[in-house]
């Protein structure tokens, strides 16, 4: 075991993993975390705690990760390169590990221009690839500068992948780069374009990459037609095919949420069968309370005990 996290145990035992997401509140609001955490207990193996998501100030991801642990959830601590330099990032990894955090997801982060402090200076001292490398290096006992770590933080290291963004041909090589940098698992961007996803997974399989890393397919159920349209036109790197829009258009407004969940469940079914996919990462944005129902309907329950 690299870290001994529950997520690592589930994946290494060959179970189909199921992770969720919890966005920290825009305030020191403990209750908000409790409320979001409640429905996820026993339903997901680990929960991603986002780091100033969409460049909007929120409770720190390590702070919220600790609160998640108190709530009985295993956090997957997200860290972006936008807000900290290498000193702060390495320091935070040490602190997080010492306090019981075992999974980390290394990301570049959305550009600050999209957030609530667009005037700020983006740090980007290192990029996500270099962050993966840094956390792997620390686990192996060395900081970025080559100096020794006194008691290495044994993190299970995650990275993101966007199978859809251009240049498509390069995406699988970029996945290979992340694996070489030290990624143990991958969580993908929200998937709507299944055809492209199948092709990306096939290419990853052909290159032997799915043998080297656990890939969790990213799923975000559409709550409404409006959300689908927004995702299609406004969210960077999102690929929403017209079929998805049309299918939601075909049902009356009140039933669109239900249809969105049905679509997500169909995707999950397909991923369960797909060679090279090791689990699902469900990003039910501001829909945490519906996660048990989605998990049930998708046949993800009960979760295995490890």
């Amino acid at each position, binding site marked *: 075991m690299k870290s001994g996290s529950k997520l690592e145990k589930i994946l290494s035992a060959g179970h189909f993993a199921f992770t969720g997401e919890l966005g920290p509140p825009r305030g020191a609001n403990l209750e908000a975390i409790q409320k979001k955490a409640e429905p996820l207990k026993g339903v997901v193996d680990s929960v991603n705690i986002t780091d100033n998501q969409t460049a909007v100030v929120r409770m720190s991801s390590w702070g919220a990760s600790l609160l998640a642990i108190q709530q009985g959830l295993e956090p997957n601590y997200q860290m972006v390169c936008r807000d900290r330099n290498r000193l702060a990032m390495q320091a935070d990894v040490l602190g997080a590990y010492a306090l019981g955090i075992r999974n980390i997801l290394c990301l*570049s982060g959305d550009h600050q221009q999209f957030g609530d402090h667009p005037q700020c200076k983006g740090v980007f001292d*290192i990029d996500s690839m*270099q962050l993966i490398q*840094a956390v792997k290096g620390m686990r192996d006992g060395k900081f970025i500068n080559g100096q020794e770590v006194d008691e290495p933080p044994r993190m299970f290291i995650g990275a993101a992948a966007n199978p859809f963004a*251009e240049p498509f041909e390069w995406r699988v090589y970029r996945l290979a780069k992340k694996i070489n940098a030290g990624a143990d698992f991958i969580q993908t961007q929200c998937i709507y374009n299944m055809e492209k996803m199948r092709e990306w997974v096939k290419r990853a399989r052909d290159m032997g990459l799915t043998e080297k890393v656990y890939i969790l397919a990213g799923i975000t159920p559409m709550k409404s037609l409006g959300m689908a349209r927004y995702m299609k036109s406004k969210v*960077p*790197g999102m690929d929403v095919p017209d079929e998805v829009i049309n299918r939601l258009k075909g049902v009356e407004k009140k039933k669109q949420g239900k249809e969105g969940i049905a679509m997500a469940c169909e995707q999950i079914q397909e991923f369960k069968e797909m060679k090279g996919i090791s689990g699902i990462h469900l990003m039910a944005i501001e829909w945490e309370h519906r996660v048990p129902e989605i998990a049930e309907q998708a046949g993800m329950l009960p979760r295995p005990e490890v």
Partner: protein
Amino acid sequence: MIVAKRKPFEEIKELIEGYKKVLVVGCGTCVAVCLAGGEKEVGILADELRLSQKSEKEPAEFGEATVQRQCDREFLSELDDIVPQYEALLSMACGAGIQFLAERFPDTPVFPAVNTTFIGVNQDVGWYEERCKACGNCVLGMTAGICPVTMCAKSLLNGPCGGTNGSSCEVDPNQPCAWHMIYERLARQGRLDKIIEICPANDWRNQKPQTLIQPGYEERYESEK
């Protein structure tokens, strides 16, 4: 070249408020080429300032002078006899030129009339684009001559990020994604192997003021160090 943009007129007026004799100092190199602070722009700004003083009881006076390069002592020396006749200097050079002017005349207040914006290229008349952030550790050899530090909004050395919008950057549909361009150009040259390897964390060498002495000149400046 270094590209600059004139400050808003109101801001300039506020900066020099109260001074009765001001010399507007232009620079004949980069800022002249990018139409921000050459001889012509000095003339225009001085005229505008004079016009704005018309209704004053005691209008301020504005002189004009443009040197070939404000970042060079040899040219600044041309101003030695003129500057003492003025209460303040309003420089239209880049930030480096303005500072060198202020250093040469430490008894006279110096104000900037332009905002220095970037190191860039001339796309067409009046149209400039940033190309280099002077990071001090050039990676253009790896990236097919396209600067990821400057042209990628996140300065990624292992791009592209997951936000690319077709071939555009996630921050602006009108801004091409630097890493998309790097990929295309390397593919065209059959050199994609350049970006298969992980590029390690950069050694940012522009984090403190720097001095550069070219090889061969070390001895000459030994005594000054």
